[in-house]
């Protein structure tokens, strides 16, 4: 049988019946897909196994583990370890659980790599930029200046001997939305592998971790066009890796003809400019998730230098003109749509002055309380 004929036959068979795994004789392969609202988004787990495997139970355990981790890492939960660090800012160091320690170390590494363009202490700025108000309000320059002074990753002191974290000044606050979902998705994927489910994909919305394969092919993830929700710019085959995207399109408002989005530059206190989106593929989810935000703030030129310094990382940048730029050697990771460029519009075509532009905000939601996650540099990447 020729290669093409074999491929066609395989495709036809796959459409008719579940595949059999070569490493488990007698296996009738099945796929379990489950999705739950968590972490202010929808989290999907796709697990493959053989008929009779306790996949439902394993996936439930993975969701439970994600809920446990989210409870440690959420700055919106007053009982979380992060909230404890925030409450004791300027007062005393707090001994933190291993999970938070890992995330804070990764945050500091990302801050160092991006010269502070990613900063887990950004949260005081988040209070100023509200994307759920109508009419929207641009904070006064003096307010931005005041809050900006409370941001600074160098004043987050991690003590390895004590396993403690300390925010050195009163009023400082951590906000881990910029990297927590990437970390949590990978932890859930690892847990599934440890418990006998080697082929899984965990997607905390756009922050995705993959292990193993999806049957006879790798896991495939499309990268969204930042100006066209239904469009893809590239497809990535993940091999025990994670992918995350930061974009300027998620939450925004327009005042005086200018659009303000949610990815804030910790140094200026204002939304980053010059880049529409950045997608990072890396061996670890926490790295991909933290880097995408930092790179969006840094922009293409400096961003590419940073990516080159991170082992195993690759990035796709979409600049303000909609042009695509890859980091060095990233062409082997991102399979670009031929001729791809983000849709031509210089910016979003329909802007409503003074009203939040949150994507697709549905009127069903109009009477709901604002998303507790609120505005963010990072909280969604």
């Amino acid at each position, binding site marked *: 049988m020729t290669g093409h004929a074999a*491929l*066609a036959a395989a*495709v036809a068979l796959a459409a008719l019946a579940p595949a059999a795994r070569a490493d488990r004789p007698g296996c009738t392969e099945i796929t379990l*897909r*489950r*999705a*739950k*609202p968590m972490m*202010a*988004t*929808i989290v*999907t787990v*796709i697990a493959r196994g053989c008929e009779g495997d*306790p996949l*439902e*139970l394993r996936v439930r355990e993975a969701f439970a583990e994600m809920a446990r981790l989210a409870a440690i890492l959420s700055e919106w939960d007053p009982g979380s370890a992060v909230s404890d660090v925030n409450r004791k800012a300027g007062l005393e160091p707090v001994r933190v659980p291993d999970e938070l320690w890992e995330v804070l170390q990764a945050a500091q590494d990302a801050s160092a790599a991006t010269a502070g363009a990613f900063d887990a202490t950004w949260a005081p700025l988040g209070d100023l930029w509200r994307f759920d108000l109508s009419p929207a309000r641009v904070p006064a320059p003096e307010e931005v200046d005041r809050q900006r002074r409370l941001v600074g990753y160098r004043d987050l002191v991690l003590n390895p001997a004590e396993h403690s974290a300390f925010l050195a000044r009163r009023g400082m606050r951590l906000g881990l939305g910029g990297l927590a*979902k990437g970390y949590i998705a990978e932890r859930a994927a690892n847990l599934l592998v440890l418990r006998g489910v080697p082929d899984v*994909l965990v*997607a905390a*919305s*756009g*922050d*995705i971790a993959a292990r193993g394969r*999806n049957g006879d092919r790798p*896991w495939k*993830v*499309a*990268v*969204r066009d*930042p100006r066209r*929700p*239904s*469009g*893809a710019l590239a*497809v*990535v085959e993940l091999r025990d890796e994670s*992918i*995350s*995207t930061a*974009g300027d*399109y*998620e939450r925004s408002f327009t005042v005086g003809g200018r659009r303000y989005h949610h990815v804030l530059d910790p140094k200026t206190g204002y939304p980053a400019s010059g880049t529409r*989106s950045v*997608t990072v593929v890396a061996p670890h989810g926490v790295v991909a998730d933290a880097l995408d935000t930092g790179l969006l703030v840094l922009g293409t030129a400096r961003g590419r230098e940073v990516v080159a310094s991170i082992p195993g990382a690759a990035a796709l940048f979409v600049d303000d003109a909609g042009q695509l730029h890859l980091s060095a050697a990233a062409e082997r990771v991102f*399979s670009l*749509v*031929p*001729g791809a460029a983000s849709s031509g519009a210089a910016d979003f075509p329909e802007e409503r002055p003074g009203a939040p532009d*949150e*994507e*697709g905000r*549905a*009127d*069903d*939601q109009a*009477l*709901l*309380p604002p*998303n507790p996650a609120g505005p963010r540099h990072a909280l*969604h990447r």
Partner: protein
Amino acid sequence: MRGWAAILAGAVLAGAASADQVFLRESEIAGALFGDQAIGVPKTLDLSDVELGELSRTVQRKVEVRRYSYLEAWSGPADAKSPKRLLGYAFLLDVVGQSLPISFAVGVKSDGTIQDVQVMIYREPYGEEIRERRFRAQFAGKKLQDPLVVGKDIDAISGATISSASAAYAVRKGLALAQILGRRPGAPPR
């Protein structure tokens, strides 16, 4: 129908195929939400005028739909002929998400608290690029007109974080419906 109107509007605006990702089938709901041994018994709830008013007040918006599908979840081994104990209810609710309705299964325990919430169907407009000739070459067996299907050709999309605000609304509605159901004369014993 609000849901269908939204689907059509979404398809026209996006100019792309709408891909439905099915996560949970009705036959799987009881097991997925209440544990592998749970048995689901499909039911329909028709609200009276008074109950519809109560539901609208509880969820803080005017609700016009009177008929709801739900399952009673009963304990007991899957092969048991007679169910033993009522574990709770699972309501099947459609709520408009980013642009298209998301179908949720909202599990409410028989004591009136939340058991679990899962997505049954997630819909989104997607899939123009597969029409591009060279790009579709990597998806064996695809025809020119075929959309790129999430859940088949690709497994996920890295991009905007999906808001789960609609889930909060589904939860409130599920809790309110369970309350109404529990107060009815002849409600199953808890």
